[in-house]
C-alpha cells in the first residue's frame, strides 16, 4: 500500500521524540430545504492530514492537504517543536500505552454511500412538506440531512498503525411559526447516529412534532423569572451533564491549573448516592463512538461519578502522564485540521429508581423543562435554554411555557438533584460539541428524567 509506506517512511525519518501522522479521507453529502426551496444539494470529498511532533517537551503541529509533502512537513513540525521546547519550562510528555495495529470497519445496515442523491433529496423533501403544511402559521422551515463517511489513518513513531472507518448521519427538522411581527417561535427535532441510511427513514412523526411545537409555542406564556423545583427531560438533562459537568472532568482543562484541579479532586462528593455519571466510548450505533481515540488509545467506560463521588477524569496521553492517571481514550479531534484534545464520547447519567409521576408528586409550583436549544458553561457557571417547558402546579403538568433559561452553579445544582428517573434515553443530535473551536464533534448525551430543587430561571 503506497500511502502506508509514505507514512512509515516519514515517521522513520523524524528525529522528534514522538511523531504522529493522521490522514483523513472523507466523502459527504448534504441536502437542505428551507421553506419551499432546495437550499443545498452537495457532494464533496476531502483529503488532509496532520502531523504532530514532540521535541524537548514542546509540540509542533503541521496541517496539510497535499499528502505528498509529508516528509518536509514532519521536518517543519520538528523544527517548531524544538522552538517551543526552548521557550517553555513546562515539558509535555506522554503516558505509555500499548502499540495497536488494527483496522476497524464500519458496519452499516444500509450504507448511505450507496443511496442515490435523488432518494436522499426526495426523503428530505417529504419531511419538509410535513413541516410546511402542518399549519398556515408555519412561515419557514429548515430540513437538513447530512452524511459523512471518513476513513482515518493514524500512525505514530511508537509503531501504532490504525485505520478506522467513521460513519455519521444527521437529520435536523425545524419549523418556524409566526403570528404577528414579533411573535416568532421555533420547534425542532435533531437526530444523529453512527448508522446507515435506515436511521433517517420513517421520521414523519418527528417532522409533525416539530411543526406542532412551533405553533403551540406561539400561544405559550413566557416564564416568570425566579427559583423553582425543575424536572429536566432526558434530552435537557443529557445536555446539562455534558456541558455543565462533563467538560469540567476533561483533564486538559485542569492539569495545568492547581486551583482548578483542587476543585475537581477524585474522591470528592458531588451528589447523592443515586447519582452515577458515565462516559462510554462505545455503545453500538451511537454517534459518540470511537473504538480508538485520535492518539490510538482504546475506548473505555469511565465512571465520572460513582454513587455521588467523583471517580475519574477524562484523559489524553499527555494529561494522564502529568496527573499520574491512565489514559481513558478521550483524545479526539474533529478533523485533520486539529490536534486531539480531551473530549467526551457518549456521556450520560445512569438510571435511578423514580417514576416520572413520583417526581411530579410533591411539587406545588415547578417547571418541566424539555430539550435544549443550546447551552454554555464557564466552569462552575452554566446556562441552558429549554426548547419548551410546562408549568407544574400541585403535582400536575399545566400550561406550556417559553423562554425558559436555566442557570446556576453546577456543583450546587448536582447536590440539588433529589430524584433520578428509571427511564434513561440517549440522543446523538444533529449538531455536536464545540470545545476549543473544534466543532461539531459527534457526541451523544443522555439521562433519565432528573428532578432538581432550587434552580434559577431567567425570564421576564
Amino acid at each position: 500500500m503506497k500511502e502506508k509506506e509514505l507514512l512509515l517512511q516519514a515517521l522513520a525519518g523524524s528525529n522528534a521524540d514522538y511523531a504522529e501522522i493522521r490522514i483523513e479521507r472523507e466523502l459527504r453529502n448534504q441536502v437542505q430545504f428551507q421553506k419551499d426551496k432546495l437550499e443545498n444539494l452537495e457532494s464533496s470529498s476531502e483529503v488532509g492530514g496532520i502531523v504532530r511532533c514532540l521535541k524537548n517537551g514542546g509540540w509542533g503541529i503541521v496541517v496539510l492537504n497535499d499528502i505528498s509533502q509529508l516528509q518536509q512537513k514532519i521536518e517543519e513540525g520538528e523544527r517548531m517543536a524544538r522552538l517551543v521546547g526552548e521557550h517553555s519550562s513546562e515539558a509535555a510528555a506522554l503516558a505509555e500505552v500499548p502499540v495497536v495495529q488494527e483496522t476497524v470497519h464500519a458496519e452499516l445496515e444500509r450504507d448511505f454511500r450507496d443511496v442515490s442523491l435523488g432518494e436522499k433529496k426526495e426523503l428530505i423533501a417529504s419531511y419538509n412538506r410535513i413541516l410546511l403544511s402542518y399549519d398556515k402559521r408555519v412561515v419557514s422551515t429548515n430540513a437538513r440531512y447530512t452524511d459523512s463517511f471518513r476513513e482515518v489513518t493514524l500512525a505514530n513513531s511508537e509503531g501504532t498503525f490504525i485505520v478506522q472507518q467513521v460513519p455519521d448521519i444527521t437529520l435536523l427538522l425545524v419549523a418556524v411559526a409566526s403570528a404577528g411581527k414579533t411573535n416568532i417561535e421555533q420547534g425542532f427535532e435533531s437526530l444523529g447516529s453512527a448508522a446507515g441510511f435506515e436511521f433517517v427513514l420513517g421520521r414523519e412523526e418527528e417532522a409533525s412534532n416539530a411543526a406542532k411545537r412551533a405553533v403551540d409555542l406561539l400561544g405559550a406564556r413566557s416564564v416568570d423569572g425566579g427559583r423553582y423545583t425543575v424536572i429536566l427531560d432526558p434530552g435537557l438533562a443529557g445536555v446539562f451533564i455534558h456541558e455543565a459537568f462533563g467538560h469540567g472532568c476533561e483533564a486538559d482543562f485542569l492539569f495545568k491549573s492547581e486551583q482548578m484541579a483542587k476543585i475537581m479532586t477524585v474522591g470528592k462528593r458531588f451528589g447523592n448516592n443515586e447519582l452515577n455519571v458515565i462516559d462510554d466510548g462505545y455503545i453500538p450505533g451511537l454517534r459518540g463512538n470511537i473504538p480508538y481515540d485520535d492518539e490510538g488509545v482504546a475506548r473505555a467506560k469511565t465512571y465520572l461519578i460513582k454513587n455521588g463521588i467523583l471517580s475519574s477524569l477524562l484523559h489524553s496521553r499527555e494529561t494522564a502522564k502529568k496527573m499520574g492517571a491512565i489514559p481513558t481514550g478521550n483524545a479526539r479531534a474533529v478533523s485533520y485540521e486539529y490536534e486531539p484534545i480531551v473530549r467526551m464520547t457518549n456521556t450520560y447519567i445512569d438510571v435511578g429508581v423514580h417514576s416520572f409521576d413520583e417526581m411530579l408528586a410533591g411539587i406545588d409550583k415547578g417547571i418541566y423543562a424539555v430539550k435544549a436549544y443550546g447551552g454554555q458553561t464557564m466552569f462552575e457557571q452554566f446556562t441552558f435554554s429549554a426548547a419548551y417547558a410546562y408549568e407544574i402546579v400541585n403535582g400536575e403538568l399545566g400550561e406550556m411555557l417559553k423562554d425558559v433559561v436555566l442557570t446556576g452553579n453546577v456543583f450546587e445544582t448536582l447536590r440539588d438533584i433529589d430524584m433520578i428517573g428509571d427511564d434513561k434515553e440517549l440522543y446523538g443530535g444533529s449538531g455536536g460539541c464545540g470545545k476549543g473551536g473544534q466543532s461539531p464533534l459527534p457526541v451523544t448525551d443522555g439521562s433519565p428524567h432528573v428532578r432538581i430543587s432550587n434552580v434559577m430561571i431567567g425570564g421576564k
Partner: protein
Amino acid sequence: MNALLEELKGRQGELYHLQTRTLPVEFRSGKLESIKSKELEGVALRVIDNGRLGFGTTTNVKDGHGLVDAALATAAFGEKASLAFPAQDDFPSVDTYDQAIVELSERDLVELGEDLIARLERVSSEVDINLSINKVVETVKITNTSGLDAKEERTRILLSVDIEKAREGDIFLLFEEAQASYLNELQVDRIANNLIQQLRWGERIVPTPSRSLPVVFSPAGAICLLLPLVVGFNGKSVFMGTSPLRGRIGETAFSTDLSIADDGTIPHGLRSSSFDDEGIPTTHTPLVNNGVIKRFVYDLRAAALAGVEPTGNGSRSGFRSLPKVGMTNVTISTGTHSQDEIIAELDEGILVDSVLGLGQGNIISGQFSNNVAVAFKIEHGKIVGRVKNTMIAGNAYALLKESLIALGNERRCVHGMLNTPTIAVDGVNVVGQVK
C-alpha cells in the same frame, strides 16, 4: 478561462478557490505550549446544468474531473437556478494585505505573546493566563463562465487572552480579543489595560437586586443586543418571512439616535474586501438611518429570490460552504460621551462585558435571557465590584427603540464583525442571586 471551467463544456459555472496559511501559537497557563502551521487549499464549484444548480467541493485541486462530476451529479436533482453568475465588475479599491503580517515569523509571534503575558503577570501573580496568537494569510480566487476573474490576498492577525482567577467557591474568567488586518493596528495595549482594569474591579463580589435596571453594554457586551439585528437585517430571513423587520422599510423601528450600516469597504476593516465571496463588489449599505429602517443585505441568490440587487454580502465560511448572506463590518453610530461618563451618570446599574449562552434561545424575536459572564455593579456612578449568578433578560428590538440611554463616543471592533460603541439601555430585567 480556468481549465476546470472549460470542462463544463458550455454550462454555466463558478469556481471559488481558497488558500489559507495560518500560524497559531498557543500559551497555556502562561507557558508556550505549541506552534501550529496550517496550509489549507480547497475549491468549491457551483454549476448550472439544464437550469438546475449543483454544488461540490474538494481539496483535490488537481482532479478537476472528480469535482465536475460530483457537482453535475447534484445538479441533476438541484434547485431551479434563480441566479446568474456575475460578469467582471469595477471593484472598489480596498486595502486588505499587510506585508508586515506575512513576514511575521513563529519567533515574532512567540515574543509578542511572551511580552503580553509578562505584562499581565506583573500586575497579578495569582492568575492563570491562556493566550493565543495567530496570523492568517489567504488568497481568494473566483472565476466564472460569465467572465469574472477576481483575485485578492488578505491578511489578519488575531490575539486572544483569557485569564482565570480561581478561589474556592469562585472562579473569575476574563476574556479579551483583538484582531486587525494590519499589524500596527493590533491593539495590544487595549487588551492589557482592559484586563488589568477588570481584574481590579473584580476583586470584590457584590450582590445584585432582582428588578428592572439600566444596563451598560461595553462594546464587547453589545453583541447581546446586536446579534438579533444581524439575523433580522439578513435579506434571506426577510424573504423567508422569519425576520421581524420584514415589510418595515421606512418605519422608525429604533431610537432616532441609532444608525447602523454594513460596510465592506472600510479601510483596513476586518471583513473588508474588494469583492464578496461571489465576486460582487462590496458596498456601504445603510441599514438604519436615525432609527428608520433603510435596507437589508443580500447575496446573489437571496437577491434573485427577492427581486433586488445584491449588496456584496455573499459570504462563505471557508471553501466547504455555499455562499450565504453574511454581514461584513456592522458599524453602529456613536454618541457624545465616553463609557466612563455614561457610567458616572447612573445611580444604579450593571456593566456587562460578556454573557453566557450568547445567541441561544429565541434570537429571531430579539428576546434574550442570559447569565452574565463578566459584569460589574454600578452604584452612584462608580463600579463597586463584580456580579455573578445574575440573569439579564429583555428584547433587543424593544430596548433599542424605547429604552436607549446613550451610545458611547468610541467604537471598537469586536467579535470580528461589529464596529460598535458602548450601548446603554434602561429597563433590563435583572434576576440576581437570592442568597
